[in-house]
Structures are given as C-alpha cells and as structure tokens.
C-alpha cells in the first residue's frame, strides 16, 4: 500500500500536460484518445468492451478484476512530415481516471476520460501584405484543453452469465486558444493577439452488456446515445450539435489455456458534431477495429503477470481539407502486479501511422496505467 501512495505523491508534483503542435491527429476538435485503458491499448483496443479500465461499456464495471482506482498517463511522441519537411512533437496526456466500488451484484463507478484532446501549439514565420508592402511576420497559434467524458455508471450482475450496465455521461471541458500575429518592431506595424476560451457541454447515456455464452467466450457490447452538445465562446453561444452515438462489441476467446484472443469493432458517429464547427471543418464517422492476444506470464508476488500484443485500424473523426485521416497501429505491453496483487501496472507501447492530404504522421504512445485495489 505504501508504494502506490508514494507514486501518487510523485505524480502530483510533476508537471501537467505538455503542448504539442498542429498535426494530422489534432485537426478539428482534437484527437480521440479512444477512452481505452492501457491494457486494452496494448491489445489494439480489442478488449475495450470487457475492460473495466476502459470507460466504454458500463457493464464492464462489475468484472471481478476491476480496480477501485485506476489512472493512466499516455505521452505521445509524434513525427509529422509534409512535403519533405518533418516536425517532431510531444503531447502529454492523462486520459483517464476511474473510481469504482461495489456491493454484491451492484457496482458503481465514476470516471473522467478524455474524449477529444485539442492540445497543440505552432509558431511559424511568413510574410504578410500590409498597406501594399510585404512584411515578415510571425504567427503564433495554440490550443490547450480537451473535451472530457465524465461518466457515472452502474453495473449489475443479472446472473453468472449476464451483466448489464448503465452510464450517464456529461461532456465537459474547454479549449483555451491563443492566436496572434506579430511584426518586427522596425516595421512600425502592430501585432494582434486573441485569447479565446471555448467551453463545451453535452449529455449522453450509455447502455452495456456482458454476456458469457460459454466458459471460453465472452461478449461485451455497449452503445452510447448522444444528447445535445453545445459550444460557447466566452459568454456567447457558438454552436450546438449532438454528442456522437457510439456502438461497439468485443469477442474474447479464452479456450486456450492462459491465453485470451479478442477482437473488437466500434463505430462512432462523429459526423453528428458537424454543426459544432465551421463549414471548413471536415468530420467523418469512424470505425475502429482491433484484435489482440494476451498470455499469462509468470506469477509475481502471488499474482499473474501478462504479455499483450495487438493490431488496430481506425479512422479519425476530423480530416484535413476534406481528406479523411486513417490510423493503423501495432501495440504490445505487459502487466505487472505490485503490492501483493493489490495494484497493477499496465504498460503498453503503441506505434501508429496516419496519413492524409499528402502528409504522413508516425506516433509512438507510451501508455502506463496504474490500478489500485486497496
């Protein structure tokens, strides 16, 4: 128990989110983290619907292996190449925090997970025509913040084979945006800068099911039904749309001893957010397909460890100049118990490749999840 507490204290004093920059993955309202726990990330998202550390299926809360507290850190190291030029950037994310508790058949949980992370910054030089004269100028643009999915959920064991769940979602968060253009002082031309805060609010409800038809097969499925969603710029209503509907299903096969093979399909209707952006914003519905393999490793401190491998293919919601951005990734990871099985580290690495509009992007995610069961 002492060690996890020490780690928590250390986490608290370390710096917060870092900024990244404009890239394929942060178009529109930002990058969808997927709301997957580190274990599911390592498995290509394949166990997302049966993973209590992934805030997708509320029914998964009642799985016996759940942790009471789960937190995750997920830095992304990214390389974006356009026209022979490349940029490297880093984004630090804390995509999920989950607290759960249960009594007999009923389990309840609260979670805050990042739905869309819009954190980036870019500074570049160009020339602007001012009063008929072409003048060197520096443009600075940045965005900080995210849309967070805050969920209150309950799960219930109907019987040994069926678990159901219900989640109420409040989408909240803000983007703090800065945009400015400056000119050299010798030109006598003043600069401009605008600081803007866009706040978001939205509502949704999710329903989930976990069904164990046989001893070696588990099926998890969930659906999120989106309600209204609003964006406000400072005190003004900016736009309104609908929270994207989502539906997903996971099949997990455990017929091979100490091995789990899983696959997931997920569809999110991101286009329902179209009205939240301008006419220039291109937004697409997206499918997310993943398969994964998990094997049980040696026991450490009386609890099993795991090794994981996954493949994933998905579309990103926001495109570039009308082009849809696709993301393919390969991932792997391990799970190591600590504190005599009362805690567990899920560590995963994910290598993702994206492309659209003549630009290519490669990203490496290091995802570390810490689950604690006091």
């Amino acid at each position, binding site marked *: 128990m002492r*060690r996890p507490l020490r*780690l928590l204290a*250390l*986490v608290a004093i*370390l710096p917060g989110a*870092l*900024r*990244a*920059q*404009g*890239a*394929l993955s942060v*178009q*529109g*309202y930002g990058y969808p983290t997927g709301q997957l726990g580190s274990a599911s990330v390592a498995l290509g998202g394949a166990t997302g619907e049966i993973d209590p550390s992934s805030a997708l299926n509320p029914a998964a809360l009642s799985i016996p292996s759940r942790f009471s507290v789960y937190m995750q*850190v997920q*830095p992304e190291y990214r390389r*974006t*190449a*356009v*026209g022979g*030029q490349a*940029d*490297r*950037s*880093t984004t*630090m994310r804390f995509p999920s925090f989950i607290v759960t508790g249960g009594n007999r058949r009923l389990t309840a949980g609260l979670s805050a997970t990042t739905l869309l992370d819009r954190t980036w910054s*870019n*500074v*570049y*030089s*160009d020339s602007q*025509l*001012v*009063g*008929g004269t072409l003048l060197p100028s520096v*443009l600075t*643009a940045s965005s900080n913040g995210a849309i967070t999915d805050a969920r209150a959920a309950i799960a219930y064991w109907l019987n040994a084979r069926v678990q159901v769940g219900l989640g109420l979602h409040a989408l909240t968060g803000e*983007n703090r945006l800065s945009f400015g*253009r400056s*000119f050299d002082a010798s030109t*006598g*031309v*003043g600069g*401009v800068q*605008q600081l803007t805060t866009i706040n978001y609010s939205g509502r949704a409800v999710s329903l989930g099911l976990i069904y164990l038809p046989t001893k070696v097969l588990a099926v998890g499925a969930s659906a999120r039904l989106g309600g209204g969603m609003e*964006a406000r710029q400072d005190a003004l209503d900016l*736009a309104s749309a609908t929270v994207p509907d989502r539906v997903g299903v996971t099949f997990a096969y455990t017929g091979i001893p100490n091995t789990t093979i899983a696959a997931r399909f997920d569809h999110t209707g991101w286009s329902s957010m179209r009205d939240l952006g*301008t006419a*220039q*914003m291109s937004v697409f519905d997206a499918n997310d397909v993943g398969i994964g393999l998990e094997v049980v490793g040696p026991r*450490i401190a009386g609890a099993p460890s795991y090794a994981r491998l996954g493949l994933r293919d998905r579309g990103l919601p926001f495109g570039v*100049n009308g082009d849809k951005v696709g993301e393919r990734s390969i991932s792997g990871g391990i799970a*190591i118990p*600590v504190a005599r099985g009362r805690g567990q580290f899920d560590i995963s690495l994910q290598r993702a490749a994206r492309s659209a*509009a*003549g*630009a290519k992007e490669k990203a490496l995610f*290091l995802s*570390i999840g810490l689950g604690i069961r006091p």
Partner: protein
Amino acid sequence: MIRRLLRAPVLLAFPVALLVGACTERLDTASSCPVLCPGQTLDILDTILDPAVVLDTTLQTFPLLGFESGLLVATRGDTLDTRAIIRFDTLARVFSPPSDTARPVSYIDSATLSVRLAKTGIKVPQTFYLDAFDVGDTTLVDSLPTTLLPFFTAGRLLGSLRIDSASYIDSGTVRIVLDSAKLRQIVSTPGAVLRIGLQLRSTESGAFLVTSSDDATNGPLLRYRVSADTLVAAVTARPLSLFPRLPLNVNGDLVDYLLVADAPDIRKAGRFSVGGFPGRRTYLRFNLPRWMTDSTAVLRAQLEFVQDPVRGLDERDSLTIRAQVVLAGNATTDLNRAARLLAPAGFFVGDLLRVAPGDSGVVKLEINSLVRLWRTNSGAQNIPSALILRSELEGSSAFGANFFGLSAAPGLRPRLRVSYVPNIRFGQP
C-alpha cells in the same frame, strides 16, 4: 530477489514517463503549417480615411510665458529678434559690517550679471555683444511684455559684454559688468526693482540660448559689493519676481521669460502650423468610424500630411515635430487648455516627423498605437480622439512648419491610411 529486480523498474515507469515526456516538449511547427493548420489565415485589409480629421486648429502660445526651457536671444537682421528678461524684484538694501549694526546700502561696486550661454544651430558670429538693459518698471502691465521694448535704449544700458568667436566654443558662463551707479540708484530707491533685458548685438546673424533660472546651478546670478571693506562679503541675488500680485502664484512664472521683438509669421490660410514664434501647436480631432474603433484590430495607421513650405528663415534646417495624445476629456472645451493636458511624449506615438521648414510633399506619422487607444465600446468614448503636433524645440526655436488643413483640396488635406484585421475567426475549427 528476482522479484525485486523485476518490480523496481516497473515502479519507476510512471514518474519516468512523466519526466521523459516533459523534457522532450517540442513546439516547432514551421514545416507542417500552413498545410495542417487550417483556419490560421488572417485577413488584413487597407483603407484610407479622407478626410481623417474633423477639426484642425492652430493654437498659441506654447510654452506659456515664463515656461521656456531656455531663453533664446537672437538677432537675425529684420527677420528674428528675441530677447530675455530676468527679474530681480528684491535686492539687498541693508547690510551689516563686521562687528557693527545693520545700515542701508549706499555703496555699490563691482556689479555683474552672470548668465550661461549655449550655442544653437546658428553659426557663432565673429564678434558679438551681449547688452544688458534696465527694463524695470512695475507700473506696466506685466502680462504684456512687448511694452518693454521701448526700454532697450542706450540710455538704459546697464552693461555690455563683447565676445569673440575665438574665445567662445560651445557653451559657457559669461559675466556682464553692470553700471554700479545705476544699480546703486535702484537699490537706494525704495520699491524699485531690477529687471534686466538681454539683447544680442552683432553685424552678423547670431542666436544663443540663455539658461533660465529653472537651473539652480547655471541660472542667472547678480553679484555686487555693498562696501569698500573687503571683509564685507559681496551680495549675490538670484532672479525673483513679485509681480503681478494677482492672480496668485503667477508672479513666480515670470522670473525670467522670452521677449519676442520680431519673428516671421508663418501662418497661412487653410494651413495649420507647428513651431515658430510665438510657439504654435496644432490640435487635430478625429472621428474614426465606429466599425473601426469597436471591432477591428488596427495593425498600421499612418497619418499623412502634405507640407506647405515656409520660405525664409533657415528653411533647410531640420525641425522635429512630435505628436502627443490629448488627455483632456469632453468637459474641457477650451482647446488651448486641452492642448496642455497631454500624455508624455513617446506614449502611444513613438514616431516623429523630421522636416525642414522649406520642405514640401507628403509626410507620414505612424499612430497605430494611438488608434488602438481610441478603441470604443459600442461607440462610447471617454476622451475625444485628438492629438497635438508640437515642435521639439518649442519656445526656443524660430523654426516652424505648415501643413494643409481640412479645408484644402482632397489630395492635400490630412488623411489616415489604415491596415486592419476586421475580425479573428480562430477558435472554432
């Protein structure tokens, strides 16, 4: 043991990930923009406001009498003649010999007036004289200094100093020996005052600046002996003015001041003037359109004037004109007063005009910070949008410049060339 070895790096993974992420932060994005940075364009529009001003007027006299930073004594033939007046309205009329009682002054000797002269842009004449005249007469109206001109006669000459250019390089304190008999007569006459008028005399053009009494160290100083006994210290007196009695506190302003005997009048109809004698300022009031002051970001605002040449006195010499924002509110309807309630030079307007009086053509003044200052909220404005044009050597230089005003033809009147951003649409993707 093996378990510990396995767990140790795992436990460090969480904080290490944070630290590694934090230390590799990168913000350079020049390569991926603008292709991957939609919505980051900025429309910069240009417009010309013509006429830019709704009111232009030339105001004088600046600085106010007695507030000159230096007193110009100049003789420029029949073009320019300025003199300095220095008041010594209290003089020591009693003194105490050593080990004796106080007694009235009846002896005056070795009277001198020390003043500091500084060279101006005018070449120092080969030989010139600095004449000191007795111009004291408290019966005259003090606010009309030109009434003192008749006192500059040989009969009222107190003293004269000849200076050769070879002995005068840049600046220095000179001592004019005064007529002790005339000073004794003033000292011995109850209520009489000593007011000295300084005039430059030369066959060539010349101009010097006399350091005013504002400078306690180098200001004018009167010195005279009141006893033949060398044990009795000489009396020194600094300028002091007791008149006018009313209004209160004005007397102190007139300790020393400039007397303009003759100066070219640069004013012309349809033009506004800056500089010259008496010192002139131009008051310009703007009425910028509300769409500009309410909801745009001004990047550049250039005020363009067309200069009308002033021929004659040093027309090729340079004159620096500054613009200062008027801080007087709408309640101040006296423009002459408003033209003195200004933000310090350099605030909001860093640019300046450097012109020669004889120049012609378009001159430009950058005032974008000023236009930003004049932003309005739903059209409401706390202070009028006005600025003052003033010469940097106001009150101590005869240089002046004329510019075509509001009533001139469209191509000649002041106009404002503005580059602005109508709005920034950044934020909503």
